[in-house]
């Protein structure tokens, strides 16, 4: 296997929100992963599982109420972003790492023309004036499939459709040619046909520029379309990690399995009953002692209730479960 260069390495990321001196909430609990050059890694999980907090930790943009345990480290180009002061972090933000957000409606400043907004990062990091970068803005808009970029540059966000806005967001994120793009649910707010357009563009750009990407979504369909590797999060932890093909073929964690079977598929005859995961995500302030998924898991045992599993390699992937499905199937088979 050829040695691949990792762009970013998140190690033991553990975020906490102090509630009172004795209790804290951990929206992200001991998460480790890395992203290789030119790789798309998808982060999936239910609402509140800590996906956004993880992403914002990399950007250093979590709200100040969120703090990090000291063993947390995020290594980017040989530097640990965690210890870096805000001033240094700012030279990386938007320049080497950039991010696009879920809702293009609200992620653009309504009072500035989009040309200005796109160029802002460039102006800031390359120390140039707007006139000089107009061409670059034009180019990038063209690349993300905005028709008539010259005119669109002088428009305000409200004059654009949702799909156009998301293209603008992408253009904005890519204008400084970053090495890592974090996309937090980039298409959730969009209609399916528009989503397809956007995903297509993202994929093409990624291929062209050998960009690394952290794609956050809760739509397994999008993951299957886009991701090289998948991280499944559940209540603040990564419960499964592996390459996309193998996870979809054979999920190892019961939660991943549950997620997959709860989507109605378009193919084949429709099932009589969907396989829903019963119950709801546990409240982050009163997590159970053992496995967080215990209680919703159909395979749960006494051991799961008492002991917390850890993320361990299995068949080249990693899974955090006492009874991973592969093992189970192997045993039964």
């Amino acid at each position: 296997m050829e040695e691949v260069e990792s762009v970013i390495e998140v190690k033991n990321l553990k975020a906490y929100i102090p509630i009172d001196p004795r209790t804290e909430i951990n929206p992200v609990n001991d998460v480790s992963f890395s992203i290789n050059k030119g790789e798309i890694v998808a982060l999936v999980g239910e609402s509140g599982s800590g996906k956004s907090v993880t992403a914002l930790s990399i950007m250093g943009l979590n709200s100040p109420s969120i703090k990090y345990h000291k063993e947390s480290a995020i290594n980017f180009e040989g530097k640990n972003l965690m210890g870096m002061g805000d001033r240094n972090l700012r030279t990386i933000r938007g320049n080497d790492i950039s991010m696009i957000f879920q809702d293009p409606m609200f992620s653009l400043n309504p009072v500035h023309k989009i040309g200005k907004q796109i160029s802002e990062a460039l102006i800031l990091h390359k120390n140039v004036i707007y006139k000089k970068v107009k061409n670059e803005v034009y180019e990038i808009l063209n690349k993300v499939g905005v028709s008539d970029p010259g005119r669109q540059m002088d428009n305000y966000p409200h004059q654009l459709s949702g799909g156009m806005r998301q293209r603008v967001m992408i253009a904005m994120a890519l204008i400084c040619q970053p090495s890592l793009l974090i996309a937090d649910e980039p298409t959730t707010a969009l209609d399916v046909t528009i989503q397809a357009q956007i995903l297509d563009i993202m994929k093409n750009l990624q291929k062209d520029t050998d960009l690394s990407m952290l794609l956050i979504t809760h739509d397994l369909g999008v993951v299957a379309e886009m991701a090289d590797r998948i991280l499944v999060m559940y209540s603040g932890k990564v419960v499964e990690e592996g390459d996309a093909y193998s996870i979809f073929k054979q999920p190892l964690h019961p939660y991943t399995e549950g997620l997959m079977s709860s989507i109605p598929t378009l193919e084949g005859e429709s099932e009589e009953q969907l396989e829903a995961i019963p119950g709801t995500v546990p409240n982050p302030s009163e997590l159970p002692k053992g496995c967080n998924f215990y209680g919703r898991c159909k395979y749960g045992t006494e051991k799961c209730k008492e002991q917390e599993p850890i993320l361990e390699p299995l068949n080249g992937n990693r899974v955090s479960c006492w009874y991973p499905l592969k093992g189970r199937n192997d045993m039964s088979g």
Partner: protein
Amino acid sequence: MVDPIVSLKNVKKYYPADSGLFGNKKKWIKAVDGINMDINPGETIGLVGESGSGKSTMGRVLVGLEKPTVGEVTFQGIGIENYKKKDLGKEMQMIFQDPYSSLNPRMTTANIIAEPLVLHDIGTKKERKKRVDELLERVGLSSSHGKRYPSEFSGGQRQRLGIARALALEPKLIVCDEPVSALDVSIQAQILNLLKDIQKDMSLSYLFIAHGIQAVKYISDKIAVMYLGKVVEFANKEDLFKQPYHPYTKSLLSAVPKPDPELRDRERIILKGDIPSPANPPSGCSFHTRCPKVMDKCKGSEPTLEYVSNKSMVSCYLYEEVNEVKESS
């Protein structure tokens, strides 16, 4: 053949977009623009379409929340304007998309669920309480939840409360306006299962609105595809998925991401451009601006919804000839 419980006859709903200089309305948002449809007892009709295509508006017109600008909605053969508002509520109910704003934050859940009963003077207080407990249990909650306020529930639980309220009067039809869109995947499945179970128990009809086509596929018998206020294709679920006719339907189906990485390199139809504004719809076929198979004719006049096969109805000039052939033969 059974009689439909609800039919829409050329229903249009326009909203004023600009009140003009002296209140002379000039522009209209054609939210719903001429829909014909029957809903049979016990049947679920799925309604899909892009955001702003008029799905919710149609739902609201159906339950009588809004009067159609043109056309008529009949319930069991009688125009709904002939019903007393109150009586209509016994027959048709609605479940809303946003589980947060669809429950009055200042009422206990028991009161919320009992409200339709109180309004219709059904039962004594005690009987109503019993009924509320039953309903709570039916939707998978316990009667102890009745004393709580909506804010103390999760999104999925609230959606269950909304369902319980809709069931209170044992209606014949429920309009579900994107009841699962706001929920997590794992919760969506719970709610969809619940809706399906209830339908089986009570032989309800649903008009199920969603813009995600998966959920619609799971729950519906027939599916109507809407584009800019019009139904562009209407067919049985199986037929629609086996053989979509309208270019929009085709692209919609192909755009849905498949949860299987093996399929990621398949051919897909990716549309150009955006959905036009309903205040300013294109002439002719409203899809012509994005249609991969657009012909000159499409820009001129509007196609009508016609049967292409025995089962599917499509509004597209591509199938005109098929029809003509059929008619002539």
